[in-house]
């Protein structure tokens, strides 16, 4: 892994389109300004980890008991009539 030192105001460029600039450093906190194209998602790592945890919790095994699903009715009707599961 590449490790670089930067001062506030300095930046690094990643490829031709990404730039990360250090805005300020204070109290153990670094503020970064990130320039990325509109089609590049930028997320805090812990958000992605939270979604990964949620996915792992929701992943069904062969044993997952799903009886509860059959009793659930939607609270409102959407015009157009729902999802085509086998589309």
């Amino acid at each position, binding site marked *: 892994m590449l490790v670089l030192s930067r001062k506030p105001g300095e930046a690094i460029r990643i490829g031709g389109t990404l730039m990360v600039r250090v805005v300020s450093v204070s109290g153990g906190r670094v503020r970064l300004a990130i320039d990325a194209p509109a089609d590049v*998602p930028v997320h805090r790592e812990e958000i992605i980890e939270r979604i990964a945890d949620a*996915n792992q919790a929701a*992943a069904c095994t*062969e044993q997952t008991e799903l009886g509860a*699903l059959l009793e*659930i009715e*939607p609270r409102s009707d*959407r015009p157009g009539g729902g999802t085509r599961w086998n589309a």
Partner: protein
Amino acid sequence: MERVKIETQRFGTLDADPAEILHFDGLPGFPDARRFLLREHDTSSVFGWLICADQELAFVVTDPFQFFPAYQPELGPHHLCAVGASEPGPLELLCIADVRDGAVHLNLAAPLLIDAHTRRGAQVILETGNHPTRAPVRPR
């Protein structure tokens, strides 16, 4: 085109038209899950299955707007790019349901986007709106 046979423990052998297969670039927590099928749970159910063809993995999914009519996911260009869509068009939005101990929660923070034309799908992470990862559809 030759039909694809997918072996699963829960659903047995699934027989699919290759055109049915949805292509994901992995999901958070499941980076190698790439090919999926959407199947109904039961003919009258509002829930369906997103079944992975690459590994033993399946999610219960549903249309979140049926349960949360006020849900307004804000989609940006990077969300649409994730499924190869240049503009909002025939996109389907589903949410993963966590079904455990009789309780059902939807992940509204990271819905699944599926482009019906490109057959590409992605789980997108919403930056705005403060949507919960566990919105109760049916509390325990």
